[in-house]
């Protein structure tokens, strides 16, 4: 029986899996039907029963065994890892299908039907079964190399162990509707590939965008001009350099931290509390506050709830004011709603100003907040306040429907629900 060595980089993609015997003909995918990844880190754990299935599969002799959650990036990683090892000839998919993703049906459909010209898995019930980041060659190899053992819905470890065991028998062994045995490595050489990450968030891709994305994927190299146009990719002049510099700085920080720990260990010193404090001062603030920082962001965080209340309100008003100013450039300038909202805003800001004056802040802090409120009031005063103007819907110039931009802009302030207003407001 022919067995071959996997690629040098095998398995090329990182993920939530264990690596077993590289010469085993079977890989196991346990569907992860749990809110992993969407939860805060402190509760982010894989359920024990799923973890157990992953472990027993490896212990029984699988080449790779891991969890799968997403119907796009997750499947792409599996494809890359499997085509890098021609010895893998079976894929056992087990566990309960992932709610919302339908990943189990997606991987099954991929093996059975492949993908269409829009790189969408044919016949998948998943919402975004797009494979944009891997070569077509890898997908077709994946389908040719593998036989699917469909155990979707099966969570019993004994069944899965029996399935894994059957795959590496030398003589055909019955397992459910299959006759399983190890056929040896796939006849062609391994494919070494990894995700291109040209589409980082396939879950956000909408149907109308696919053709555009496909054009981008087909391009051998994306010109800088194209990248500039993209929202997520800031490749403006100097911005790319800034990004690299930031990353280098982060690496330097981490290396210096490792070096510090090594020195401490070699010297056999127990880190005293003073050292810990120094470490916190030296490392953590630099991480949260990058060296190149816009001036406007650098805001002193209020210590008290009272201070927080005023700061939050002022944050909200800065957005509301910007919206009002934009509306003032449009038909709302001649309407009655914008002036009405401006007047409401003025009243509310005046009350806020009184609250700041009566607060227990230090003189400096009070002055700072008062300046901000005065600036906002001044901006409001430059906006129209004549409520006798006709409603632009009545006049027929506003045709957006029942909604009103001006009143809903003011409602942005309703998003602030914490902390409760101080007693003097």
């Amino acid at each position, binding site marked *: 029986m022919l067995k071959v060595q996997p690629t040098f980089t095998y398995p090329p993609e990182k993920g939530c899996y264990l690596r077993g015997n590289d010469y085993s003909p079977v890989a196991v995918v346990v569907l992860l039907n749990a809110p992993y990844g969407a939860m805060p880190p402190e509760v982010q754990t894989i359920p024990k029963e799923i973890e157990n299935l992953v472990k027993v599969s490896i212990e029984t002799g699988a080449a790779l065994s891991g969890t799968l959650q997403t119907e796009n990036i997750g499947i792409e990683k599996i494809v890359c890892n499997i085509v890098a090892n021609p010895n893998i000839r079976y894929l056992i998919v087990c566990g309960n299908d992932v709610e919302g993703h339908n990943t189990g049906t997606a991987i099954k459909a991929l093996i059975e039907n492949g993908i269409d010209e829009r790189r969408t898995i044919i016949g998948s019930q998943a919402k975004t079964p797009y494979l944009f980041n891997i070569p077509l060659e890898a997908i077709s190899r994946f389908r040719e190399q593998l036989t699917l053992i469909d155990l979707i819905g099966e969570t019993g470890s004994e069944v899965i162990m029996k399935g894994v065991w059957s795959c590496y028998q030398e003589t055909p062994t019955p397992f459910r509707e299959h006759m399983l045995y190890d056929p040896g490595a796939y006849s062609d050489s391994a494919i070494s590939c990894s995700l291109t990450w040209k589409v980082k968030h396939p879950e956000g891709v909408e149907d109308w965008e696919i053709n555009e994305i496909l054009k981008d994927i087909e391009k051998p190299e994306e010109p800088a001009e194209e990248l500039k146009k993209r929202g997520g990719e800031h490749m403006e002049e100097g911005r790319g350099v800034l990004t690299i510099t930031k990353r280098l700085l982060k690496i330097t920080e981490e290396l210096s931290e490792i070096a510090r720990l090594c020195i401490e260990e070699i010297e056999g010193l127990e880190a005293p509390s003073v050292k810990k404090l120094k470490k916190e001062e030296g490392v953590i603030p630099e991480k949260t506050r990058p060296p190149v920082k816009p001036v406007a962001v650098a805001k002193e965080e209020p210590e008290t709830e009272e201070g927080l209340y005023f700061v939050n309100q002022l944050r909200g008003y800065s957005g509301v004011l910007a*919206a009002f100013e934009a509306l003032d450039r449009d038909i709302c300038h001649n309407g009655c709603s914008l002036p009405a909202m401006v007047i409401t805003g003025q009243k509310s800001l005046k009350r806020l100003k009184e609250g700041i004056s009566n607060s227990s802040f230090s003189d400096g802090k009070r002055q700072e907040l008062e300046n901000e409120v005065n600036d906002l009031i001044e901006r409001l005063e430059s906006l129209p306040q004549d409520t006798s103007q006709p409603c632009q819907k009545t006049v027929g110039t506003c045709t957006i429907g029942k909604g009103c931009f001006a009143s809903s802009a003011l409602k942005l302030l309703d998003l602030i629900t914490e902390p409760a207003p101080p007693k003097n407001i």
Partner: protein
Amino acid sequence: MAAYFKNQLRGYDVVLATLQAFSKDICRRCIGLSGAQTKVIKGIKKLRMDLDKSSISEDNKNEIIAHIESYEKIANSIEVEEECECQKTAGDCKIGPGCFALGALELMKEITEPSLKTEEEEVTKVPKLVCEKCGAEEPVPVVH
């Protein structure tokens, strides 16, 4: 037909101004603003695609395209830091469960009329008589 596009542009004008204002604050390093920016960019792109397919006059189209292009520039210029995280998780945003950036994006929901489909249907459903000789079109006369 142009009313749909003009209303959408009105909405984006307000949303972009609001997002720009929030980008001067802690939202600059927030995934919420980054997501809102991406959605606006996508929305404007979709608007352009719909415009290309629409049957409105070239003059109107050119005017709307000029607006779309300027909004695209503004949307791309909203300053968001390269590595963002939710500022609530980071402990800097303490306004409660709400999110200013996503709230600003919600302003687009104020536009409920006219729908693009309705207008398209209106255009395609108008019955017309076509002259067999010259191809000239005229509306079907209403019989009372």
